[in-house]
């Protein structure tokens, strides 16, 4: 018999406050919810059938951290997306609730509402609602393992003392709001609220010249230089080229091959992780992955889609070399010689000081308020000792 999850007592207060806030705002979804966007951020694109509201975001937070969203009630979204690690898990591959491994690492969820495509190399999953189905119901591998258990999930939620009221507050026009579709909508709404834009780099951009050390400032200049070229794939307000937002008129999906592998001498990647090639079958897509946001990158080791680069130093070495050399084993090959790698990965020479500067800049992308913000924290975790 599975142990029952801890009864969320502290969240009763949160619930009461939330409902009070919703009531004060006049309820009934008549006012549109305004996200508190970081300075310089555009409006994210929100699907018309899932407008944001405080109640929906809060419901999504509870569901995000609720282990009842796994079949065996041992894992939640928060198990592999931990706030203190900018919503990653520190592992090269994630481990699902039944012990199966994913092929790629858990992605950081900061600013997930701006991703043009979700996951590492999937050109079809373009909304958070679509993406949430994968860990919840997928079988290859099993992550949360709820495939076929939609009625069990709905029963679990209905039986909870708080969820019926929370679903009613989040979906006020629906007679029976506890549905799988609304679970997906609430989760997506919570993810859209995970805004991160208060790093030392951001404060420097806003005018605080003391926010970056001299070393980090020089590193920033290197990052945005034509010598090092990071900004080509990791630029813009989210330090990722793969973004979408309200004002966007062009599809900015981006997938790039950065020369990490070359197992067959002609640019091939290991069979378990061929990137976008897996979906398109186009040889030119071999090894192409989405360049994710570099925000909070110091917290989200290990790096690359398969966690094969353990440290930021190793990442800088990879790009300085122009590709990674795997000397032996099944994935042996020199990524630098890959004919398929992106044209911007041509390598560069950094002095010791420049290397330290670039590292200092990458470390200055950490937003401490984001990873400690109680609005994004686990409501089921034990309250701090008095």
């Amino acid at each position, binding site marked *: 018999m599975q142990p029952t999850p801890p009864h969320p007592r502290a969240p009763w207060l949160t619930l009461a406050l939330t409902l009070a806030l919703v009531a004060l705002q006049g309820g009934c979804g008549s006012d549109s919810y305004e996200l508190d966007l970081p300075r310089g951020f555009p409006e994210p*694109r929100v*699907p018309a*059938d899932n407008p944001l509201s405080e109640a929906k975001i809060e419901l999504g937070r509870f569901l995000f951290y609720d282990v009842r969203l796994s079949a065996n009630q041992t894992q939640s979204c928060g198990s592999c997306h931990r706030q203190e690690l900018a919503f990653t898990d520190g592992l090269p591959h994630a481990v699902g609730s039944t012990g199966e491994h994913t092929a790629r690492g858990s992605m950081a969820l900061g600013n997930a509402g701006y991703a043009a495509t979700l996951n590492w190399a999937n050109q079809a*999953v*373009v909304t958070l609602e679509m993406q949430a189905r994968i860990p919840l119901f997928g079988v290859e591998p099993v992550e949360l393992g709820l495939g*076929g258990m939609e009625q069990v999930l709905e029963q679990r939620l209905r039986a909870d003392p708080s969820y019926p009221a929370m679903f009613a507050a989040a979906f006020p026009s629906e007679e029976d709001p506890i*549905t799988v579709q609304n679970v997906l909508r609430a989760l997506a709404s919570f993810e859209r609220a995970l805004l991160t834009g208060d790093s030392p780099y951001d404060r420097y951009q806003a005018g605080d010249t003391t926010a970056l050390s001299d070393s980090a400032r020089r590193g920033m200049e290197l990052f945005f230089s034509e010598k090092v070229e990071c900004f080509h794939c990791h630029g813009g307000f989210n330090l990722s080229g793969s973004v979408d937002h309200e004002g966007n008129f062009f599809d900015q999906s981006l997938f790039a091959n950065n020369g990490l592998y070359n197992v067959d001498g002609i640019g091939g990647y290991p069979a378990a992780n061929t990137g976008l090639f897996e979906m*398109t079958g186009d040889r030119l897509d071999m090894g192409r992955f989405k360049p994710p946001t570099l925000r909070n990158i110091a917290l989200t080791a290990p790096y690359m889609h398969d966690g094969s680069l353990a440290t930021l130093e190793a990442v800088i070495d990879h790009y300085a070399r122009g590709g990674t050399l795997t000397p032996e084993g099944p994935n042996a090959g020199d990524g630098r010689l890959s004919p398929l790698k992106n044209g911007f990965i041509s390598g560069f020479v950094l002095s010791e000081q420049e290397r330290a500067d670039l590292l200092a800049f990458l470390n200055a992308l950490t937003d401490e308020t984001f990873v400690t913000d109680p609005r994004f924290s686990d409501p089921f975790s034990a309250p701090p000792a008095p």
Partner: protein
Amino acid sequence: MPRWVWRRYVVGMKTRPPRLIGLSLLAPLALVGACGDAAPRQDVSLTFRATMGSETFACGQPFTGLGVTGDQTLTVRDARLYVHDVRLVTAAGDEVALELGENAFQHQGIAYLDFADSNDTGCEGNPETRLVIEGSAPEGDYVGVRFTVGMPFEQNHQEASVAASPLNITDMFWAWQSGYKFIKLDGASTGVPTWRFHLGSTGCVGDPMAGGVTSCTAPNRFDVELMGMDLAADSIRFDIAELVSDVDLDTFTPETPPGCMSGAMDPDCTEYFEALGLPHASSPAGVQRVFTVD
């Protein structure tokens, strides 16, 4: 011809130019019916029977004599699929849409069929089975059936707005490839303990601005035409043995899913697709042989 007769003709018909023979079939209906919708209709129930060659399929039971060697064993624990665009064919060769009733198993012209009761020994999925497609059509003399296996494009890629059963069965979600599983068979062979055949659209591309999929390079829907049918007496056979007749059930290409999950790059899929009349890799589309008149 008079405009109102033309309208009657077009309402139940697919895109075919009017022909004299079809017109003569409808003329008596047009005279009998009042102005518009009152032509008599008949209820139609199409029954499906899943088989393993000459034997009726039973989930959780091992069946032998299968596969490319003709002596392999396969146990299928879950077997279900979606069908849409069901049409009846008259003796004259004209098509009439079978309008599906709305219920837990049918929605917006899509029908869900399920051959496995999870309460039976060794079976998975859900306890419900569904072996029929129920609808109505104008009264007529029908000798055949056509349908498309799979989900139509629009419903395949609609997301949160689609909540009606049978489109909310999470086991049939195919979230990684963004859509639904058109056919889902799960089981085990002697050599492959977790064997799966999942058919769905691949190579799909999404548009972040539209918030959904815009096209798929391999839609993987296929048409079935069954002529010479007595709709009242005959059923439609779904022969799983035929689907795997050229497949080596006891092995699979390393680093690909065990069985076939429609990967365009997965060489194991070619023989399954060929049996369904679908193209795969460099193998062209053929004629499907898995659905036949029973």
